[in-house]
């Protein structure tokens, strides 16, 4: 029997610890998955470069005029611009903020703080989850049905008054439709934020005799505010970027002559357009007038600045508070 000394064993182990050569497969895999992420980011980089490049003619020479101008029939026109689109998008955002935010936050408070685990609650939760997956174009059909065409549901609930209120295919209809569209997003993100409120804070408030609503107002809402704000900003950005529902309810691509100021409420019952609609319009018109491609790209840059700023604020805000609260 061979005698193996301790030293021998140690020496042998030291050799095997070096491994059987380098982990080639592992390295390739690592590079491949890192590559997919960087390729994805590269695509976005190309996209942003492309629209900047294409839109540069408009942006560099007449940015002010472009922002204050209107829909025109030719691309070479000093008055060509996105003002009417900004007006429509501004009012859509306002309706989302006025309607979807309070309703969504209220619904989230109900579901997290008041609702019992019963069938009604589960049904509401199911409805919200399913609504969040409904394609945006279908919300356009809903808007068309409710706010543009006079309809009666179940044979006796008349909805004509809704159309009288909105005036048909107007910024009001667009705002209401998109408020409904982003509602599930607002609810779900607010629910998550409310769920993260430590139970110790709630108990502390109850312990000194706060009612439920006082506890919510003084503890839950302040603590959940950054999370809720993140959700509302993301939903706002989504609403501003949506085009499909607006097409369905009748956003228009031409024939708008007025250049309403942002506080012009009378224009709310007129026909409308919005920033994403302008982009679609100009892309489709580039066939007869190549300059509209430049206008579309410039409008995209304007839209991206608004939307990405909203998203960036939302995500930085969330990350900051996540870090602060460990």
């Amino acid at each position, binding site marked *: 029997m061979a005698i193996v000394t301790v030293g021998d064993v140690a020496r042998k182990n030291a050799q095997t610890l070096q491994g059987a050569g380098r*982990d080639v*497969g592992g390295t390739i*895999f*690592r590079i491949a*998955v890192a590559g*997919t*992420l960087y390729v*994805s*980011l590269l*695509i976005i980089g*190309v*996209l942003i470069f*492309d629209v900047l490049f294409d839109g540069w003619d408009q942006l560099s020479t007449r940015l002010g005029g472009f922002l204050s101008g209107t829909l025109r029939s030719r691309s070479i026109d000093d008055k060509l611009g996105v003002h009417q689109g900004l007006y429509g998008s501004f009012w859509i955002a306002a309706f989302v903020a006025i309607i979807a935010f*309070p*309703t*969504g936050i*209220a*619904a989230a408070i109900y*579901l997290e703080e008041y609702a019992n685990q019963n069938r009604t609650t589960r*049904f*509401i939760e199911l*409805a919200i989850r399913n*609504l969040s*997956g*409904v*394609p945006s*174009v*279908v*919300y356009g*059909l*809903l808007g*068309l*049905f409710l706010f543009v065409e006079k*309809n009666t*549901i179940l044979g006796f609930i008349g909805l004509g008054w809704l159309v009288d209120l909105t005036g048909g*295919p107007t910024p009001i209809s667009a705002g209401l439709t998109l408020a*409904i569209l982003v509602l599930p997003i607002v*609810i779900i993100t607010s629910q998550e934020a409310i769920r993260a409120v430590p139970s110790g804070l709630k108990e502390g408030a109850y312990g000194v005799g706060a*009612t*439920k*609503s006082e506890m919510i107002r003084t503890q839950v809402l302040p603590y959940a505010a950054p999370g809720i704000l993140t959700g509302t900003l993301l939903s706002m950005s989504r609403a*501003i*970027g949506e*085009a*499909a529902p607006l*097409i*369905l309810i009748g956003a*228009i691509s031409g024939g708008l002559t007025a250049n309403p100021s942002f506080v012009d409420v009378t224009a709310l019952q007129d026909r409308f357009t919005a920033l*994403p609609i302008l*982009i*679609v319009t100009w*892309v489709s018109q580039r066939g007869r007038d190549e300059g509209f491609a430049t206008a579309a790209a410039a409008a*995209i840059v304007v*839209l*991206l600045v608004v*939307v990405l700023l909203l998203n*960036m604020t939302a*995500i*930085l805000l969330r*990350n900051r508070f996540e870090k602060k609260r460990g």
Partner: protein
Amino acid sequence: MTVTHMPHSDAELGSLSGSPRRLRREAIIKQVLFGAAIFSVVVSFLIVYALLSEAWIFMRDIDWSTTWGQIGWFPRRGIYDVPTLLVATFWVTIVAMVVATPLGLGAAVYLAEYARPGVRKILKPILEILAGIPSVVLGFFALLWIAPNVVANLGGEGGRGSILAAGIGVGILTIPLIASISEDAMKAVPDALREASAGMGARKVTTVLRVVLPAAISGLAAAMIVAVSRAMGETMVVFMAGGAADAAIFTSSPYDGSLTMTAAMASLASGTDNVVGEGLTFQSLFFVGLLLFLITLALNMLANFFVRRIREQY
């Protein structure tokens, strides 16, 4: 013992019933909040009702021979060939998934398993911010950059839109969605499993491929299903870059232009005569909408099922 302090008189202790005003206020607040919550149910009902009531008129009055085996989708001429839309939708979805699955899944694996915290902290927010790029932007990009630079090199025509160009655009739009859901699923896999695998001497790549991905499979399935649902429901990219305007001839080739369900709806509604056409044009919108709604609803419910399963597991 001396009593130094009498905290409450008997009168103060009198009743524990609480002020009626406060109780009423609390009850009203609860009712208002409940109203906000039930609103989503009302919206769901209204969507289903709107789709069914108009689609019902279409299904009742339509000559069904115009919906199958025709030359294409010509709603303004009373020809509603559904297979035209279904095949185009199918192709857009397939192309989008071919683009988005490897990129989204790979990005998720990298972020969840490989990226150092510092790198992750920068890349993840960028990816999230990009998830908010509006689809009209991708529509523009698909038509004016992907078509001439990518589709042209894949043997297609670069000068106009096509199902292939639109599908690639939709795919790019879906990458962040797949990445984010997949990453969440992988993050939900307990570290104990990774340690167990590493403890037996498995290499990192083995651990990821043999342990983490199988353990996260429910979440990955959910990511794929949600992505398919999102791709089918995407409208603007296909409307702008799909290569067809008001009508489409039936085609089984992704190199051609055509209309998906969503693009058909958008094109019907756009233009100067907003949804006014011959006979059942308006109702056909809701018929296609109902089809789309049912398909995406089924997909989303399936995805929810998988998400619930991963929650139960860990």
